[in-house]
């Protein structure tokens, strides 16, 4: 008799873009890395929510005042003309990200990304209203009882409140938050302020409340290209397959393979800490009596994973390096009285028995570029020009011929006073050009932080200048602490 061979379609879960993924209920976990993330959440979100309320010299300490086109960062005031420094700052941020990624893997994803920190807070709220993992699964699976409605509405209320407050804070970085607070109290936002508060609030609500790990897995570009910064010495979270396999349930009291092994020193969670040997690679001892590795197949690492992967399958693109599995596994190892570190921060080099190099061309290059940029930025920002001078030649006519045969060129001088003092400035021609003179007033007062548009006329006497002539204007204040030269052109008809 022929018997049908049982067939199942095997699909790699990482490959199957098709499968509708079940909702992930990450189990709560306590441990050193979880505490580290809580610290990160409090520091980063604390900065975000409190910074707009800090005052400095009578203005908001950090304010990217878009309506006034002025950026205040504590004692510094930036103007649109300082955009270069903003670009420089963004580049510094990017290189910092590259540097830390090369060094320690997805630190950003696991501890600092807004997606991670807000999701963490939204999970806290969810836990507060709906209970721990098993209670949540039960609640979602159950009927709509009075309790379920109450718990769900409480969660929604807190989520929406936090989202709106987040949106409000976000807009508070761009318009003075005190004014915004007054507007909020009387519900009289300008249309766009209201729009952006709701927009940002909604984005927070959707991303941290519902999308969660989907953002990291399917939407985040950084998750895809960060592997370009990885090498064999980058910190990754890895399961020690040589020590753990074959996995299986066992009775209490079965000793760890490490205890039987000649290399009994327990590895730390951070291999780099002690450089202690693990059971990885060729150093694996003969298998223990029952031929089981140290993994007891409790699946705690899978249950705590916020992206729902099994770290024991190896390094995966979904892993955001949050180290929840390390915490989970460590607590299990403690219960079994096994050395910690079956899942740990390690590197490919360490796993294959080589030494970890922290200083290597990749990190050295990133560090050099980073240092150079930071130094340049610090120097540049503290040595910015106090006065910006722009000379715009009249757009409509190159020159005007006067009745007496003289030639006039019209200009607009744009003077930006970037100091906090009133500046009395005088305008003069730098070269002693006898044929050319300034017509009209040459003294101008510019208030602190203001832009003055000064019309300026240069006049050449009859036959004084032919064709194009380069002119240099000098703008200075009385004590010459401000002294800016600016080149422009003077046009006259060519010789006939």
């Amino acid at each position: 008799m022929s018997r049908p061979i049982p067939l199942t379609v095997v699909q790699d879960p990482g490959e199957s873009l098709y499968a509708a993924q079940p909702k992930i209920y990450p189990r709560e976990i306590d441990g050193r890395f979880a505490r580290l993330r809580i610290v990160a959440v409090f520091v980063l979100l604390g900065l975000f929510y409190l910074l707009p309320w800090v005052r400095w010299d009578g203005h908001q300490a950090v304010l990217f005042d878009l309506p006034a086109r002025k950026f205040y960062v504590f004692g510094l005031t930036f103007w649109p003309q300082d955009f270069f420094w903003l670009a420089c700052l963004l580049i510094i941020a990017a290189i910092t990200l590259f540097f830390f990624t090369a060094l320690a893997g997805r630190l950003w994803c696991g501890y600092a990304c807004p997606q991670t920190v807000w999701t963490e807070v939204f999970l806290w709220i969810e836990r507060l209203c709906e209970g721990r993992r098993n209670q949540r699964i039960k609640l979602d699976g159950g009927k709509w009882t009075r309790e379920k409605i109450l718990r769900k509405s409480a969660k929604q209320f807190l989520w929406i409140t936090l989202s709106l407050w987040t949106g409000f804070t976000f807009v508070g970085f761009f318009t003075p938050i005190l004014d915004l607070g007054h507007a909020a109290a009387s519900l009289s936002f300008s249309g766009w302020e209201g729009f952006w508060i709701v927009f940002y609030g909604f984005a927070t609500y959707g991303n941290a409340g519902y999308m969660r790990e989907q953002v990291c897995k399917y939407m985040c570009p950084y998750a895809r290209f960060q592997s370009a910064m990885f090498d064999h010495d980058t910190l990754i979270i890895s399961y020690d397959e040589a020590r753990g396999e074959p996995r299986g349930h066992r009775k209490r009291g079965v000793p760890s393979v490490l205890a039987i092994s000649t290399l009994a020193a327990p590895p730390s969670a951070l291999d780099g800490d002690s450089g202690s040997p693990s059971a990885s690679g060729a150093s694996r001892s003969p298998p223990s009596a029952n031929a089981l590795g140290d993994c007891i197949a409790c699946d705690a690492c899978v249950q705590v994973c916020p992206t729902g992967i099994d770290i024991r399958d190896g390094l995966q693109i979904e892993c955001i390096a949050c180290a929840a599995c390390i915490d989970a596994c460590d607590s299990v190892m403690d219960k079994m009285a096994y050395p910690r570190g079956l899942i740990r921060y390690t590197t490919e080099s360490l796993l294959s028995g080589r030494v970890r190099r922290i200083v290597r061309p990749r990190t050295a290059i990133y560090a050099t570029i980073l240092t150079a940029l930071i130094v340049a930025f610090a120097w540049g920002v503290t040595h910015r020009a106090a006065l910006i001078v722009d000379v715009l030649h009249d757009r409509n006519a190159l020159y005007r011929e006067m009745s007496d045969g003289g030639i006039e060129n019209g200009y607009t001088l744009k003077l930006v006073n970037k100091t906090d003092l009133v500046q009395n400035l005088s305008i003069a021609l730098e070269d002693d050009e006898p044929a050319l003179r300034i017509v009209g007033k040459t003294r101008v007062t510019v208030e602190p932080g203001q832009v003055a548009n000064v019309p300026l006329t240069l006049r050449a006497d009859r036959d004084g200048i032919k064709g194009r002539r380069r002119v240099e204007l000098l703008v200075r204040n009385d004590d010459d602490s401000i002294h800016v030269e600016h080149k422009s052109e003077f046009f006259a008809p060519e010789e006939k």
Partner: protein
Amino acid sequence: MTDDAKRADGEDAAGLRALRLRRVGAVAWPSFFAACVASVVFFAIVDPSELAEITWPHLTVSREFGYSIGFFMFWACTLGSSAFTALLLSARVKRAARERRQTLESGQ
């Protein structure tokens, strides 16, 4: 239709929905990010109120309005471009899948 087939069909539909949603996310999020960067760079140099003066002087355009319009214009461009890329790629992926299925079937 057997129960199994029905369930498989339902799962397939749910899977397709998830796939579509994911594609929307993959188009929306990077394009949003690119539009943010473009807006920052553009408006650092260009003052929206000056831009308004030389474009539609008879309309009163506040800076906030200018920034917002500019941002959404950039987003419309990046979103459109990403969406077209997704569309073009998905047609190729579908064709490749169909061809592969045909080869598999003819091989049997």
